[in-house]
């Protein structure tokens, strides 16, 4: 067998070696058989498969999570759920369309319920719908990704990434994809090497057994010759040794060559990201992405769950400031049962603070949990996708109301500092008009909206550049507004960890950068070399 060399774009640094898992693309439409009997059999098999999959999950869960899974199994086992779909199939509708139509109608009934307990079950029904659809489309469950595997796929989703265990190594190779996608962001946060845009993955029916992924150079080698492999393993060993040296320095403060102290904060998605980390490596947490709390397909997290998570993060930080972003759903981060399906352009739609203000019951629950957690440390609350000052004002009124209600009940709470994420050019241009307690620049979306180049479209990836003078000018303007108003300005996008941009970012006047824990050592080493 001959080794196959492919070149794409680097999306997450590092080297990985491992067995290959080929994922079929979930969005591929299945070919319909045109035969009602076969379609009915396919749907029956898909429902049974999804039921067995959920029943298997119950084994590992307990308490509320197990109750919900048990509910889902009971629904799937009930013939009443799919009877409309089987009727439509016998009338000639393909299985996937029939199932989707029937479940969407059922879901609409839950979504319109007056009672919030019934509405909250919407996500469980959406999960049932999608599990069966995935089986109809021939996509196996995502949990099939074994630890340490190299995943090769057309493109992939955050939920598939999150379902796999990356602690044992492994990497990602995508035919398409973008280095600015959320999967790439997650891969960088977890230290999983990733290469995107390598072009069509065709193996003439024989998938490769082993792959070498170079997330620094953006290359991948399938089925390497023994000498190629041993050379690669040698490089991996050397890279690990260099990392260990930089890691030893990461507990020291970040100071530029001309003596300026730079505040380095962490970006995290969950308290698990902080496991085994020494808080001394950072000056606090600059971004906690709470939407990942909402992705467990177990319905919306309740107040106690959220409070527990926020408190764990504040406890870890040992009085260092912690900035938690309120739910930033929508755009490329859909949440079943919460975000709007089928918006013509989700990036310009009901996302971030817009969605939160439109669904205040979900938002207020989060604000309540945050206000309660605020007594355990230095908490800042950041609102995403703010475009106009009235959005901040309305959010503040809701926070005020929740705090007043908690106090009236005698429940311990405190007022967190309320600030905004600057990622819409309108907010950057008029930053001084916002009565914000701080500004945090979301450079990914700011670059996307300024350059009109989507983060997830590889063909325009070059335009999506935070180093573009127009984007840097908006950053400088925000820094200036912060200085004039006497409030902190930080930057928490991917650009903060891109050491090629460190000098340009510090030149805008920024003194606070927030990056994933794995990027801290490299960023601090780069900051030490920056001269004005």
């Amino acid at each position: 067998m001959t080794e196959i060399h492919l070149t794409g774009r680097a999306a997450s640094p590092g080297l990985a070696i491992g067995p290959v898992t080929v994922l079929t693309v979930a969005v591929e439409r299945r070919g319909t058989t045109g035969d009602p009997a076969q379609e009915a059999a396919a749907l029956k098999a898909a429902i049974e498969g999804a039921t067995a999959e959920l029943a298997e999950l119950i084994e590992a869960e307990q308490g509320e999570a197990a109750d919900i899974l048990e509910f889902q199994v009971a629904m799937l086992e009930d013939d009443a759920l799919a009877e409309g779909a089987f009727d439509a199939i016998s009338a000639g509708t393909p299985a996937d369309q029939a199932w989707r139509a029937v479940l969407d109608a059922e879901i609409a009934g839950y979504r319109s319920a007056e009672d919030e307990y019934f509405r909250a079950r919407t996500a469980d029904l959406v999960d049932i719908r999608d599990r069966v659809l995935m089986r109809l489309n021939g996509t196996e469950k995502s949990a099939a990704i074994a630890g340490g595997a190299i995943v090769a796929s057309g493109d992939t989703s955050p939920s598939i990434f999150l379902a796999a265990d990356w602690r044992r190594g492994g990497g990602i190779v995508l035919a398409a994809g973008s280095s600015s996608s959320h999967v790439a962001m997650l891969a960088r946060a977890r230290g999983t090497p990733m290469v995107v845009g390598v072009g069509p993955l065709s193996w003439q029916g024989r998938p490769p057994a082993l792959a070498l992924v170079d997330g620094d150079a953006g290359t991948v080698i399938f089925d390497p010759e023994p000498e190629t492999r041993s050379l690669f393993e040698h490089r991996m060993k050397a890279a690990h040794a260099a990392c260990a040296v930089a890691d030893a320095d990461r507990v020291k403060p970040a100071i530029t060559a001309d003596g300026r102290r730079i505040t380095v904060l962490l970006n995290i998605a969950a308290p698990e990201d902080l496991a085994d980390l020494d808080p001394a490596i950072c000056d606090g947490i600059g971004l906690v992405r709470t939407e990942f709390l909402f992705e467990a397909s177990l319905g919306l997290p309740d107040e106690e769950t959220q409070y527990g998570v926020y408190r764990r993060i504040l406890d870890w930080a040992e009085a260092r400031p912690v900035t938690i972003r309120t739910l930033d759903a929508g755009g490329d981060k859909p949440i079943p049962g919460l975000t709007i399906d089928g918006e013509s352009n989700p990036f310009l739609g009901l996302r971030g603070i817009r969605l939160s203000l439109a669904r205040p019951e979900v938002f207020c629950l989060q604000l309540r949990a945050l206000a309660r957690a605020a007594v355990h440390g230095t908490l800042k609350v950041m609102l995403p996708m703010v475009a106009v000052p009235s959005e901040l004002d309305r959010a503040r009124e809701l926070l005020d109301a929740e705090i007043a209600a908690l106090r009236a009940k005698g429940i311990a709470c405190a007022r967190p500092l309320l600030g905004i994420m600057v990622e819409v050019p309108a907010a950057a241009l008029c930053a001084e008009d916002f009565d914000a307690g701080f500004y945090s620049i979301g450079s990914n979306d700011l670059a996307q909206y300024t350059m009109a180049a989507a983060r997830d479209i590889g063909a325009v990836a070059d335009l999506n550049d935070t180093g573009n003078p127009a984007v840097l000018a908006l950053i400088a303007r925000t820094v200036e507004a912060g200085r004039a108003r006497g409030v902190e300005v930080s930057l928490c996008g991917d650009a903060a960890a891109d050491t090629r941009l460190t000098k340009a970012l510090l030149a805008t006047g920024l003194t606070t950068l927030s990056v994933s824990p794995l990027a801290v050592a490299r960023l601090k080493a780069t900051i030490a070399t920056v001269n004005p």
Partner: protein
Amino acid sequence: MHDVNASRASKTSVPLTASAVLVNPVGLHARPSVKLTQCAKRFAATIEIALAPEGPWTDAKSPVKVMRVKAPQGAMLYFRVAGPDGKAALAALLALVHDGFGEA
């Protein structure tokens, strides 16, 4: 409330009826629905529920249909049971509701 016609029901098709208030905190939602249908399925009798004494009646053995009823907390839940083990079924279901499905 139903003893009068209970013995008749075992020989004829006259159904037994009874009602109880939903005392559990969140009404007849996911977990209570699963418990109710699991309980109902243990019996051969036909078991139906409704939110009003005149119906519409819903098959109590189908979690999908029971969830569609969206019975809130405090609602009066009506039972209609027909079959040889109807009396035992009704007793078991009423006990479950009175007990708040174990979560009151």
